[in-house]
């Protein structure tokens, strides 16, 4: 039957329902298991092949050799598009996705992170500490 107010009963019913929205930031949505959030770099596993650097569409990653067979990474996360192509391209599972999504910041430079190598006990090479 054609008459106005077709949605009225639905609207009235919603009066007694919980809101469809969440009270963020007090209540946070849990991200699914394989959510493509912030990329993490596991420094010990990296072999410095730089495939991730070549495949990243946004020039986020910079792999730096600091000593023989020792590599550090610098991530410009403000440019990252969270495609996780680097994770897929890496032959050594050095990179992984994390469920971290709250990255909003007022200071863009804080999104530039460097993953430092742990000091090596035998060779005594001190990793360069340089972070802007």
């Amino acid at each position, binding site marked *: *039957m*054609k*008459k*106005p*107010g*077709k*949605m009225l009963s*639905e*609207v009235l019913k919603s009066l007694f329902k919980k809101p*469809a929205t969440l009270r963020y930031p007090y209540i946070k949505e849990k*991200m*699914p298991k*394989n*959510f*493509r959030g912030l990329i993490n770099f596991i420094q010990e596993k990296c072999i410095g092949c730089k495939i991730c650097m*070549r*495949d*990243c*569409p*946004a020039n986020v990653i910079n792999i730096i050799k600091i000593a023989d067979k020792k590599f550090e990474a610098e991530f410009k996360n403000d440019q990252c*598009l*969270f*495609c*996780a*192509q680097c994770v*897929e391209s890496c032959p050594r599972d050095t990179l992984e*996705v994390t469920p971290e999504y709250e990255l909003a910041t007022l200071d863009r430079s804080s999104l530039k992170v460097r993953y430092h190598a742990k000091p090596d006990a035998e060779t005594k090479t001190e990793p360069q500490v340089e972070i802007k």
Partner: protein
Amino acid sequence: MAKVTIPIGPQHPALKEPACFTITLSGEQITEVDMRLGYNHRGVEKACEERTYLQDIYLLERVCGICSHAHSSAFVQAVEEIAALEVPKRGLYIRTIIGELERIHSHLLWLGVAGHEIGFDTLLMYSWRDREVVMELLARISGNRVNYAMNTFGGVRRDLTPDLCAEILAAVDILEERTKYYIGVVMEEVTLIQRLSGVGYLSHEDAVARGAVGPTGRASEIASDTRKDDPYAAYPYLDFHTVTDNHCDVYGRALVRVGELMQTYKILRQLVQELPDGPIVVKAPRKIPAGEALSRYEAPRGEDVYYVKANGTDKPERVKVRAPTLANLASVAKMMENNYLADVPIILAAIDPCFSCTDRMIETLNMDSRAGRLTDFRQLRQFSINWYKKRGLDFTALNKKLILKQDS
């Protein structure tokens, strides 16, 4: 009656994206429409030539936020054709599942926007709430709510687990229920019927002459659907039919979209139930052999066309994107004729426009002669420097300081 010409856009509260319509009115009625695009040109095609094929997938995916999968699929299909890659059947099925889920979220989004444009915000709130079901599902499958990044050359990047398959089927049940309700709303709510009927009329002949695609064309009885006409991915194995309508107005376009949603649920059930086993991807070479291909994909808004030319390196020589909105814009001018000024937003919204996806070039107009002029980057830069200088802003000193800072 004296004719009045008013501009709508480029920045206008009724338009979500920048586009400029110069509308000539006689009283309240539109007599002539002139359109100008290009405010959101991003140089995507050129940028593709500078990047590798793999990087281009992610760039092209960002041509459109709503039909991101449509763009990446169309590109990937073209490259797969050039490289003669045989995508495993499971990969094709998963690609199609994402494509259809995307159609659901795009059509529900449209329903809400259309409701909003005619002041029926209740519809907007409810359809967008239900759209969350499919957005959530996409996030669970692909790891992201938009820009799913599921495509890669030779297949898809993520597999579907049996759990996810069950979730898809459960979500389809909920959404089908809701869509039936919306069909009821569209068919029975008199305010909606009266507001949309006869608005933005586009006869079948006009639609054919102007090459309307997607739901816009199908609402004018053009039974064209790339999924049927030139089946790609898993569509050759599926049973569904093309929804058309003979209203030829905005109301018809609403009916086509909700009708299409019901077909999509049917398609999704088939896809999930018949999901074949096996690998989801084959290995693709980094360098694509020389060749060219044209690929067509039925995006939620209509046919999306990609042309790719490869030259044997790891970067394409040319990528051409034709988004569906471009094909429908010619019809918009016709649809607006003899309608009221107040109908402009809904007529425009009825083609589900996406101007940023459409813009492929900028043309500068000479203000006096209205003649077009092409400007290269150097001229453009010089122009902006002079423009600011005239207003007392000189960046030369600032530039030097910046360079010094960078060097130190």
